[in-house]
């Protein structure tokens, strides 16, 4: 087991579900290193928010970008040196509010990067404001009487934009999360993993999601766009997890 720990003191809340995402990522890195991926060629990118501190906790190359711009940074790094394995982390505020245009276009051009979204449906670091994935009626410091907006379905947007790999994961199942992360990194093209995550301080959804999440059947046809869209948009009480969609298309950097 490679030791990816660093000197940095972890400043997440005690019990934060980011610890689970961090553990899953380190384990995925370790596995990938054993499968021929070079540790030196990994770059992790992050936006700004609670998730954004994650590069400090992993002893590999990293690029702490601006809020919402991590995907653009990741695309640039990949264009600058296509031999690198570029993995970006973002929060739901980062990815789906401030930086949505970058996601849509990264998916459209099929940049060969991977994006892990820490989707806790709330702004954590700025103390609990509404994000694009917060439920309607969400009460936070900027919406004390409840948010009037319907939440965004980011995976539907990204599937429509041409993403070639779409998965959803549950932060509190680090083993499965690790496997999904590995598949996403191995996918050639734009891959996104929307990681549903409770924020134990501002939006504790542990009980809410506990019985709702379920994994897609092993025989789920990952190459069927219409079925994927149907599943992503399914208006049911259940939250499907796993790789929902995966196809192969020429990647952007190789066509430059």
């Amino acid at each position, binding site marked *: 087991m490679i030791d990816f720990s660093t000197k940095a003191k972890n400043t997440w809340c005690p019990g934060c579900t980011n610890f689970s995402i961090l553990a899953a990522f380190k384990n995925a890195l370790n596995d990938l290193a054993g499968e021929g991926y070079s540790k030196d060629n990994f770059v992790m990118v992050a936006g700004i928010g609670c998730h954004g501190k994650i590069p400090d906790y992993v002893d590999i190359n*990293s690029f702490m970008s601006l809020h919402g711009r991590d995907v653009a940074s990741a695309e*640039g*790094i990949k264009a600058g040196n296509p031999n690198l394995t570029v993995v970006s982390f973002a929060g739901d505020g980062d990815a789906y509010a401030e930086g949505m245009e970058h996601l849509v276009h990264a998916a459209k051009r099929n940049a060969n990067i991977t994006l892990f979204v820490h989707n806790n449906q709330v702004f954590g670091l700025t103390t609990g404001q509404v994000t694009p994935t917060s439920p309607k009626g969400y009460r936070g410091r900027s919406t004390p009487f409840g948010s009037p907006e319907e939440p965004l379905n980011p995976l539907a947007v990204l599937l429509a934009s041409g993403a070639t790999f779409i998965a959803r994961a549950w932060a509190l199942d680090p083993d499965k999360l690790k496997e999904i992360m590995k598949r996403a990194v191995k996918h050639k093209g734009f891959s996104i993993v929307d990681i549903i995550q409770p924020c134990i301080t501002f939006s504790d959804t542990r009980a809410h999601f506990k019985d709702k999440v379920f994994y897609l059947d092993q025989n789920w046809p990952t190459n069927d766009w219409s079925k994927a869209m149907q599943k992503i948009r399914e208006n049911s009480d259940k939250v499907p997890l796993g790789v929902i969609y995966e196809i192969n298309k020429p990647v952007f950097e190789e066509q430059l």
Partner: protein
Amino acid sequence: MPMEKKSPIYTILVGGAAGDGAKEAAINFGRLAAKHGYEFFLSVEYPSLIRGGHNYARVSISSKKVFCDSAELDAVVALNDETVEKHRSEIKKGGMIFLDSAEDAGKKGLINIPASAWVKEENLPRLFRASALLGAVCRYYNFDIVELNNIFKEIFGEKAGPNILLAKKGYEFLQSKNVQQVFLPRRKCAGKMVLDGNEAFSEGLVKAGLKNYFGYPMTPSSSILHYLAKKAKEYKLKVVQPENEISVINMALGASYAGSRTAIASTGGGFALMLEAMAFAGVAEIPIVVVDAQRASTSTGVPTRTGQGDLDFVRHLPGEYPRIVLAPGDADEAYLIAGAAMNLAWKFQSPAVVLLDKHLSESVSTVDLQTNKVKIENPKIAGNGAAYRRYAFSPDGVSALAFPGEKGKVVKISSYEHDEDGYICDGVENAKKMCEKRFAKTKGIVVERKKYDSIKIYGDKKAKNAVIFWGSVKGPMLEAMRAVKRPYKAVQIVWLEPFDTDRFLKEIKGVKKLVIAENNFTGQLAKLIREKTGVEIKNKILKYDSLPFDVRELAKKLDKIF
């Protein structure tokens, strides 16, 4: 004036509706003159629309270097009647109009050429009319039609046929009419390279090692994107047009971090979208060349005209880190400055800003690129051995560079204030030391400046009068020198930041009357000079009507002051 006699300037104007190919025809006339050993300067004037409107290009040729096109016309090439109406008054005595018209020629100073009829006969698009008129002008100046055909072949390859055919018709038509020629002898020197300011700038970037270019279209910066995209295969570049300017700069910073020499360009509005990331580049010490090719007025402004309204802006970007702001004055300087900016950015791991403007970016001229003066200069690169620290303290403030993918090195960068290893650090002592580390680079930048012309002097170096200027004002300023009554010393500020205060004070020592000339309302260079030197320049010639200075108008204003 004696100089005028030795090397007279001939100016022709080609005008028509947008889509008539007036600009291309004028450039081809410039190229034709260049092939005969002449120099030229060409400016373009066009509204922000695709079809219709009034477009024209003015090209001044001479045996000596031409810095700016003249407003006194020797010939007008008119692809429509409007061009004649608009420019008749600018024609010198004895000048000539070449008009696309089926009417019989007869009037003095006007030659009707049935170009529309010819393209109809040949079943060709109307765009080809310009070649017929160009053929006639070729004959008028006694230029070699073979050279014109060569130009068409260079541009269109095997598809040059229709252009060659129509140029021949125009040439022979003029021959048949026995029109008195203006005899311009072929000069015995090699034809010079022809580029516009943006193209020369792009060539400089490439010579200095450019690998990645990102750009979102915005006039007048777009032609850098076009030129580099066209040359991408030849020069082994990666050229990308992302979704917006925010993406442009963030992608570019990623590419730089990965070790690739990178540049971006926009104009004021697009540049404004990049500011958060400019500060990121400053704090994270990421090398990048950033161009603001200025347009006229404010905001969307006058997109296709020129101005110098962004100097204040680019000097006062968010945050504190050592600034590098450079402004070339013509295409040859644009080449050198591109190289300087790239090498400065990498040596000092910092954004380097270059100010261009429409008059510089889009004007076309013969150039003498000083290719021996631009090369890839090596930045400080980390060796092997001790654990890599991206922001290691050093007396000169410059930490050695390493790039992701290097064996055994972990390269961590951050938009947060960070420690020497690149980890987030909000320590009080660290914040102070990191800030001082970044500003320690200023000393090195100032030493480096000595290798370059931070300030350039022209004209009468001992004159009691001096004019200060920057950017594309250089062209009209150097041409005005030939037209003024009293000589002056022309002082061009090339390095706006860090400003060369000592050199400036030395150059203006003993000068009785100081004048500044800028294409803006507030006198932004004058403000900079006052800030850096305490010298207040009261005589300001400011032009903010969206056009570059007119040589005669500028000379008249200078005469009045001196």
